[in-house]
């Protein structure tokens, strides 16, 4: 589950340096697979750490290395644009909007195509196949939903209900310009209200006192501090919070229109890699049932492969929406940028 940092460009940094290195080195060694990802995917107890050791165990010659650039996936679009070395073999943790952005920004393909040759990819849930060209494959997904305090409000149950006086000053959401759940919630509202009337809908939400906070962490922190009784979050909320001394009334998951918005995470192999065979093996490993169960538990996301049960505990507390919805790649191309810009201007001028 990715909660992107919003501080990545923060602070007034200033640069100076000495010339230390010559050529920017591409991954070296015959069997080193350099994987670019976001920083919380790696480190102690993470899905990344498990994948590394389990994959290296199965492929005794291979070494997996992670690189976590601070501006995330954008860095690779920019490297490609400027003809700088990509510096990694594959990317793990991509969403649909980012793939759209890469394709809109670049003339050449950033990722290479693998359609048909990845063992296990046929088991990927139909609703999560985000790339019509089959370059990137989803490995897990979260569902965006509301989390609410049942002692203070009832589950609104629908988008329209959020405009009622009952829910005045009741909802905290995130900035769709930089937050994954925030963007998913906006896209969900566009999905339901339609591209022509979502701005009217949001004008109503703003009049009803919705708070648009920069990112998931501060938003959830504000919710925890009881600034509002509802927050846009993930339907796996209770996986974190169940326990003998936890008051579950504040961790109720509310789906709207019986839906949750799917925000799949995908992986792809950079076109410039010279490790495509090893990368293919890694992708197959990630899609294997054993890895799917581990990733789901460690990432607190749902598996992308049909029929995988992560664990009993996960099954009990992770709630899946009756009707998962999401925009496809083709629906987002040419639209998502304008949708978000128009929305942001509306919020900022209010």
């Amino acid at each position, binding site marked *: 589950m990715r909660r992107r*940092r919003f*501080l990545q*460009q*923060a*602070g*007034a*940094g*200033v*640069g*100076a*340096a*000495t010339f*230390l*290195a*010559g*050529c*920017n080195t591409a991954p070296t060694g015959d069997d080193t697979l350099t994987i670019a990802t*976001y*920083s*919380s995917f790696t*480190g*102690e*107890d*993470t899905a*990344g750490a498990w994948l590394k050791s389990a994959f290296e165990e199965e492929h005794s010659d291979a070494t997996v*290395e992670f*690189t*976590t650039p*601070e*501006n995330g996936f954008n860095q690779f679009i*920019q490297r490609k644009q*400027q003809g*700088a*070395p990509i510096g990694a073999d594959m990317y793990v943790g991509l969403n649909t909007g980012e793939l759209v*952005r890469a394709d809109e*920004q670049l003339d050449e393909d950033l990722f290479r195509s693998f359609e048909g040759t990845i063992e296990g990819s046929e088991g990927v849930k139909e609703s999560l196949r985000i790339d019509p060209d089959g370059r990137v494959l989803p490995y897990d997904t979260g569902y965006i939903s509301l989390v609410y305090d049942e002692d203070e409000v009832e589950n609104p149950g629908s988008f329209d209900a959020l405009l009622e006086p009952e829910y005045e000053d009741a909802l905290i959401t995130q*900035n769709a*310009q930089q937050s994954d759940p925030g963007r998913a919630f906006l896209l969900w509202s566009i999905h339901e209200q339609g591209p022509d009337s979502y701005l009217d809908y949001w004008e109503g939400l703003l009049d009803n006192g919705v*708070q*648009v*906070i*920069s990112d*998931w*962490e*501060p938003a*959830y*922190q*504000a919710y*925890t*501090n*009881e*600034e509002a009784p509802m927050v846009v979050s993930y339907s796996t909320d209770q996986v*974190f919070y169940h326990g003998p*001394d*936890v008051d579950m009334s504040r961790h109720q998951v509310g789906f709207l229109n019986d839906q949750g918005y799917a925000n799949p995470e995908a992986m792809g192999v950079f076109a410039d890699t010279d490790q495509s065979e090893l990368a293919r093996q890694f992708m197959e490993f990630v899609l294997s049932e054993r890895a799917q169960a581990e990733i789901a538990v460690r990432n*607190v996301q749902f598996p992308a492969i049909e029929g995988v049960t992560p664990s009993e505990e996960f099954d009990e507390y992770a709630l899946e929406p009756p009707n998962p919805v999401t925009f496809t790649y083709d629906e987002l191309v040419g639209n998502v940028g304008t949708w978000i*810009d128009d929305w*942001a201007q509306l919020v*900022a001028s*209010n």
Partner: protein
Amino acid sequence: MNERRWAERLAIPLGFVLTVAVLAVVFYYPVWSVFSQAVWSDGGPTLAPLLDVLTDPFYTGVAHYLFTDPLAVPGGIATWLQAGMPAVELGLFGFTAYQALLSTVASVALGLPGAYLLARYEFTGRETLRSLTILPFVLPSIMVAVGFVAMFGSQGFLNDVLGLLGLGSIEILYTLEIIVLAHAFYNAPLVTRLVAAAWESVDVRRVETARAMGASRMRAFRDVVLPELLPSLLTAALLTFIFTFMSFPIVLALGGLRLATVEVWIFARVQSLALAEAATLATIETVLSLLLLYVYLRYEDRQSSASSGGTPLARRPFLVGWNTLTDLRRIGLLTYGVVALAVFVGPLLSLVVESVTGPNGAFTTAYYEFLLSRQTATASGTTRPLPAIINSLVFGVGTLLLAMPMGIVVAVVATRDLPGSRLAEAVLTAPLAVSGVVLGIGLLQTLVFGTVLFGHRFTVLGPVAIVLAHAIAAYPFVTRNVAPALGSLDDRLVDAARSLGATRTRVMLDVELPLIGAAVTAGAAFAFAISVGEFDSTVLLASNVDSYTMPVALERYIGNRSLGPSLGPATAMATVLLAITAASFVVIDRMGGRWDL
């Protein structure tokens, strides 16, 4: 001996040239690589992006008529005056300037009494208190946001206290008020430090002379003390305005999108890789900041006051038994103390409390145990607290050693009366006036991605690069602390020493700097603080995964979910950051104080 004299003669010009060279490679070049996209497209100069922004009411509000229909502006103003001057659309730039103005007023109001208290009164712990005033500077904004929510939130500590006193409650979260307050939290210390340093440099003999000649206390203050405080006060106010005009993380963290500023918008444009638009906004922002800086430097230049350092004013004891409560000034300062406690100590203390409070509200040491477990973890990519602490301190000391000579050399050059030296200083102070977001993207596409020279791609990364980057961010603070103090020194002292055969460098080291010790120490504290709090270039220029500092570690713990979605580990790391930097500032001030004598 002769060689040494040559070295001394060359020290200042050489230091200046080196400073400019470093700036050129790692500041002007990266920044230009971004700005050029605003004015250059398809191989030729263009005004289109600039006009797009200036004519868009979303950005410029009512001022967009200046660019779309300039001839109708006088008529429009007349109509507006007749209508009784109703509120107008400010646009993004207008709103940004408006909140910066409010923030500056608040910072001065909150910082000035502190300077008065520290400079004019003696009490136990005064020096430690002065050292700690700079603490807010090192705190990453997301932690300030956590502290502010815990302190000023609707269920926060302040409302608990107000409720107990039967005073009702306040709702200021996600409003303009809390942004202004948080800006004051960051910038009032700037006012306090700069003004206190100037106040401590006022020569008691000049005040006594004025008094002996019959001036009232008020008159002596107005004619002798005030002229010496004014430059430092205006410096602080100007810096505060520029910082809050370009404010980004605080607005992002506490205001939400409804209160977006220009810099927040630039960040969002960069995120969606709309670099030309981001560059255009940043160009306008920087031009405005630099203009302001230039106008101020011209003003500062005209302030001619001659002080020869000498004996500072004696401090009055603050506590004078029961009389403390009958003296109006002391009561005022006590009241100020309560307000300062709420604004400065409140959020920091709330942060510390958060670090030992579990999700169910009970006491927990889990977050500190988490830090310890990270320290002993073996998985690659794990962020460990100890290397973060050591890196922060090493980078901080390196920055101090580099930024001090750089800042002082620039201050010495700037205080000379050469044609264009104000302009030169404005350009050299540009690191203060350029958007941090833009610099980040500039560093990325030049130094990190590399530049092709002679068929090779050169990248500039690693610890040395980080220290240089920190030094460039920090040295303008040294200059802005030192230059006003240097400018107020009596030129005759320098002339006398030079006529006795001392080189310019010797005069600076032996005569000038000891006389303005307070300002130099304040500059050193800022340089260290800037380095410790710096985030952006640190993460960009780190050549391997182990170059992280305390703020970077803290930021990574925010994204770590092994304790559930909790800011707990980050608040624990923030507490460690606070403790270690607090100790460092006390050490810096003590060492500065020794040298002061």
